[in-house]
């Protein structure tokens, strides 16, 4: 596990992204788990010793200068806000002291960044939520959050790629599928993608 401090920051994000990219497709490394300020490197202990992997990581981190400007993508996510699709919109509005309409405007006007993808199957952790919209998670998680739910959890944004339990506040839903269990990734959203939410009427869902 490599940590880059213990706060969510753009600097930590850049280091996480750089290290993750530099370790892709290295023999003996089975899996990479990037997060806000850390990368967990899962290696095969039959092929690599801990010290070897550590040395390799240090080498890659020091060589990090030739940072290739990875093509940045912006993905538009259509969202139907409120009503049955966003049952927590009224509560979020009340908590933030705003009209529900204003919550939607602010949410759809912001630029988001996929800090990393993790948790359970392609869940994108989005930075860039307008601070006015920060709302604490539910005290007791829902047993069933519908697939495609667009949600707020504290200062973060997220989209549920599969129906699952969850404690974030649901303000809308997208008809777009972030993940198809029958298909193969890459999934719709990847670490480093920019995201914009585009409001759609119920008829277009």
């Amino acid at each position, binding site marked *: *596990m490599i*940590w880059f401090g*213990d*706060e*969510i920051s753009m600097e930590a994000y850049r280091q996480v992204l750089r290290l*993750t990219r530099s370790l892709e497709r290295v023999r003996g490394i*089975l*899996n*990479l*788990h*990037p*997060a*806000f*300020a*850390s*990368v*967990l490197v*899962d290696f095969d*202990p*039959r092929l690599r*010793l*801990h010290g070897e992997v550590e040395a390799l990581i240090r080498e890659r981190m020091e060589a990090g200068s030739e940072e290739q400007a990875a093509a940045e993508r912006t993905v538009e996510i259509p969202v139907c806000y409120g009503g049955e699709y966003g049952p927590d919109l009224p509560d979020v509005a009340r908590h933030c002291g705003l009209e529900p309409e204003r919550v939607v405007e602010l949410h759809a006007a912001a630029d988001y960044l996929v800090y*990393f*993808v*993790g*948790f*359970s*199957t*392609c*869940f994108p*952790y989005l930075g860039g939520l307008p601070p006015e919209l920060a709302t604490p998670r539910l005290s007791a998680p829902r047993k069933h959050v519908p697939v495609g739910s667009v949600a707020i959890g504290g200062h973060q944004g997220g989209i549920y*790629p*599969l129906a699952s339990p969850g404690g974030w506040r649901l303000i809308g839903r997208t008809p777009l599928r972030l993940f198809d*269990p*029958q*298909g*193969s*990734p*890459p*999934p719709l959203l*990847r*670490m480093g993608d920019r995201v914009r939410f585009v409001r759609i009427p119920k008829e277009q869902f």
Partner: protein
Amino acid sequence: MNRIRVLSPGLQTTVQDLGRFGWTHFGVSASGAADPLALRAGNLLVGNAENAAALEMTLAGGVFEFESHSVIALTGSDFDAGLPLWTALEIKAGDTVSCGATRSGARCCLCVRGGIDAPRVMGSASVHVMTGVGGRPLKKGDVLQIGDGAVRRLRKGRGAPPLAMSGPLRATPGPQADWFGGELYAAAYTVKEESNRMGLRLQGPAIPSPAGHMLTEGVPLGAVQVPPDGQPIILFVEHQTTGGYPKPANVISADFWRLGQLRPRDEVRFELVTIEAALELLQQQESWLYSL
């Protein structure tokens, strides 16, 4: 055609290989055999590559009819099939293999020469039960195709591996080990009923929640995490890829197979070992496998 007909699926029977690797940065954990030692040994006995897809049964096994002459191996726990375990067996066309309730641990693996020919998703045939990646547990009437992936001759085997299911689970310190005292190693825990391929939930004396600021970070197979209620969870093959609970320990690779054999209500203890000791135990296990 070389096919297997599922006459009865058992409690939860899935197609498994060693899992899909290289997708955790998309939040997809490896899944794969709950007892990888049983899968690898069974495949080697029937002359497959060790990663070939096979059937993994849980607690109570199924009934399978073989349409043509086949060679199989049953490994892992004794599911009362009336057949010897840990050796290659010939099955005649039209014969059935009928498994029952377990007489030992939680899982039995049925490997077939040539492997199960199942669709691969992200490079693996493993079923990730919780998300549906790779398919679903078997149902009555399902028909499985036997592949032609055998790579070597059959082996008689050397009986069950000389490894004990009893004794504490060996673990190395987790990333937040310093936040905890020795509570995890002091008590016996019981495997809760709601355990599954995502996690083995344990019940025992509550471990005090440490004070500490923690961001969501990557979590691997075998991580022992302690949520605020103090009841540890061992992350298993379908684990989440990131999480925010502190982790005092991580079960060693050589004991992963034992996690797959734990049943609800089994007792679990932990023992702290060094990374060097963990590697030594892994090498012993690998030597046994390669002697097959």
